[in-house]
């Protein structure tokens, strides 16, 4: 028996309950943030990795991030290292020099102290490498089953160079600018999946989890035509280039065959039907550089340990306003869209 009805569609499209798709970092996360938080907190658009604060002549970058990665230890890192790198990177891509970090822990009853020590040690190591100080924190313990092992929130403050204020809002991006990333994408997602035993076999892939502030500083110190930076975390490269396309008045073209992806990641993506362009990274940054300077940027990036495999992957173009077009590896063309549904949950 079939009845035809017109469903009443909620005009703001909000669902009644938060679902895992709202945490994917894609369109639905953006909508949740805008419809609920931005509206009520009165945050300015575009939403960027850090807030830029101008207080009595001092310019600061301010950011915060929570880490719920499952499992808490994975090849190439753990939740503690990730919590420091992630916040350092959010500050650095805003054009700031990361300085101070706070760390809050929500710990499940029964969590091994030995693991907590290991996590704290790697946070301390990573902070030393990134030259930031962990200066404040909080600890809460909840009953067994009320959180999954450990969740960490880090907040960071960085000193902003006023001449770089334009970076996160992409104000200077223009047609002819080139897009460069600092190496192969997708490793973090695949490493976490491997550690979850979801691949059914041992994978050789390690997370790229790393603090990018030294690489970024080297480039920023020597180049003056960096027009945009963003780290390629949740939602991957595809999300970042789409977010960029939406805040500029031109289009973007990405050349699929120029985007570096390691062989094991490629193979596993084929098997599981993932697209590496959507996979999360924790040590990758996208630079948009002026066409006169991009070769120098590429060279500088390649001279650093975290940028050895840097590649130019695309450019900003006049046409296709607000749209990202992908030249596919076989010579075809198509849209490269934002991810819309659930990607891989609890990847960071």
């Amino acid at each position, binding site marked *: 028996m079939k009845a035809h009805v017109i469903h009443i569609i909620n005009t703001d499209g909000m669902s009644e*309950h938060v679902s895992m798709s709202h945490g994917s970092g894609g369109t639905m996360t953006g909508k949740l943030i805008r419809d609920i938080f931005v509206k009520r907190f009165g945050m300015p658009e575009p939403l960027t990795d850090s807030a830029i604060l101008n207080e009595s002549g001092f310019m600061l970058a301010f950011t915060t991030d929570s880490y719920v990665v499952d499992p808490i230890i994975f090849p190439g890192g753990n939740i503690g290292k990730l919590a420091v790198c992630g916040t350092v990177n959010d500050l650095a891509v805003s054009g700031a020099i990361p300085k101070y970090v706070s760390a809050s822990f929500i710990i499940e009853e029964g969590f091994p102290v030995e693991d907590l020590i290991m996590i704290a040690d790697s946070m301390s190591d990573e902070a030393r490498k990134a030259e930031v100080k962990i200066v404040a924190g909080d600890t809460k313990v909840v009953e067994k089953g009320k959180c999954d092992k450990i969740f960490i929130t880090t907040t960071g403050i960085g000193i902003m160079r006023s001449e770089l204020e334009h970076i996160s809002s992409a104000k200077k991006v223009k047609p002819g600018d080139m897009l460069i990333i600092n190496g192969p994408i997708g490793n973090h997602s695949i490493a976490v999946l491997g550690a979850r035993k979801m691949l059914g076999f041992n994978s050789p892939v390690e997370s790229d989890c790393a603090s990018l502030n030294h690489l970024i500083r080297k480039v920023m110190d020597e180049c003056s035509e960096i027009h945009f930076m963003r780290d390629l975390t949740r939602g991957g490269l595809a999300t970042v280039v789409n977010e960029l396309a939406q805040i500029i008045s031109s289009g973007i073209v990405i050349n699929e065959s120029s985007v570096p992806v390691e062989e094991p990641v490629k193979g596993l993506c084929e098997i599981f039907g993932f697209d590496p362009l959507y996979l999360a990274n924790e040590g990758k940054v996208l630079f948009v550089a002026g066409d006169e300077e991009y070769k120098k940027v590429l060279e500088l990036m390649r001279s650093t340990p975290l940028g050895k495999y840097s590649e130019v992957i695309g450019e900003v173009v006049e046409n296709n306003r607000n749209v990202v077009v992908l030249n596919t*590896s076989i010579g075809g063309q198509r849209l490269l869209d934002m991810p819309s*549904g659930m990607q891989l949950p609890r990847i960071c």
Partner: protein
Amino acid sequence: MKHVDEYRNKALIEKLAALIKRAASRSYIFMEVCGGHTAAIHRFGIPSLLPDNVRLLSGPGCPVCVTNNSFIDKAIAYSKMEDVIITTFGDLIRIPGSSSSLEKEKARGADIRIVFSGLEALEIAKSGSDKKVIFLGIGFETTAPGTAVTIKEAADVGIENFYVLSAHKVMPPAMETIIKEGIALDGFICPGHVAAITGSSAFSFIADKYRLGCVITGFEPVDILQAIYMLINQVNNDSPSAEIQYSRAVTRQGNVIAQRLIYEVFILSDEQWRGLGVIPASGLTLRKEYGRYDAESSIPLPPSVNVYEEHALCICGEILRGLKIPPDCRLFAGTCVPQNPVGACMVSNEGACNTYYKYRRNE
């Protein structure tokens, strides 16, 4: 990547595109009836490599898209029972039923778990839970053997709390229904994975009885372009036959062991398809011997679940029949988007609306 790169070789692809252009002396419409093909065609940008007179049309090949609202409604009704765990492939979770989706029910607290196979669902049942574990069995000849193995395993080990809600289907009758609708088609890009099980012979009737081209092909760009070239030649030479392009996986007789497994556990039955209505002998229902594993006959649902609703403006059905394309729909890209889908074709990665939205919305 060995065994993949060969089939994505740009030089070879350019050559095939040139051959197609040269051979295409009139206009041609070919339908692909496998969601994997729909996804690959758009992901690689294949339409941009074809001349304007060679058009591809998506048919009823995406398993979750052809799954009717009533199936989703039943799964949701089961998920609301206290003592039930629903296990499902991930792509089914966001398909809207008459008034809700499994994803929404999961957010409301229903015990719904994503699995990669029936055997994984069976493991949940085995793991000592008192709850009834229902596996949502969907898909064509490709996934049905996996469900069959799971049910046999459950019977062998004597698992009492495992059930299957089956919407498994077989592909050839749906193709015949499409042909009978009288759509102007010149041939089919036949499903490679289905044919790996059924063999190419399952598609011969299309060439013999209806004089339409058929090429069974793989999922890489070289495979698909070669199949299109072969189809054009079949049309030009007026020599339709069920040809195999995908010879690295498909034979004439197919995987006989898998076929035997399917029909040991299932029996052909009339089946409701989204958009195509009831197609005789196109569904797979559990045989009587395995009836205790059939969720519908073992765990009764209230009769109200059999009344299902479809959105009056959604044209998924016509799209699945090849009568319309996604931009023809008034809801496309406005009301109906992947993050807030109205119809099933907008949800699945293999759905025509979803792939069109993702890869060709700018056209």
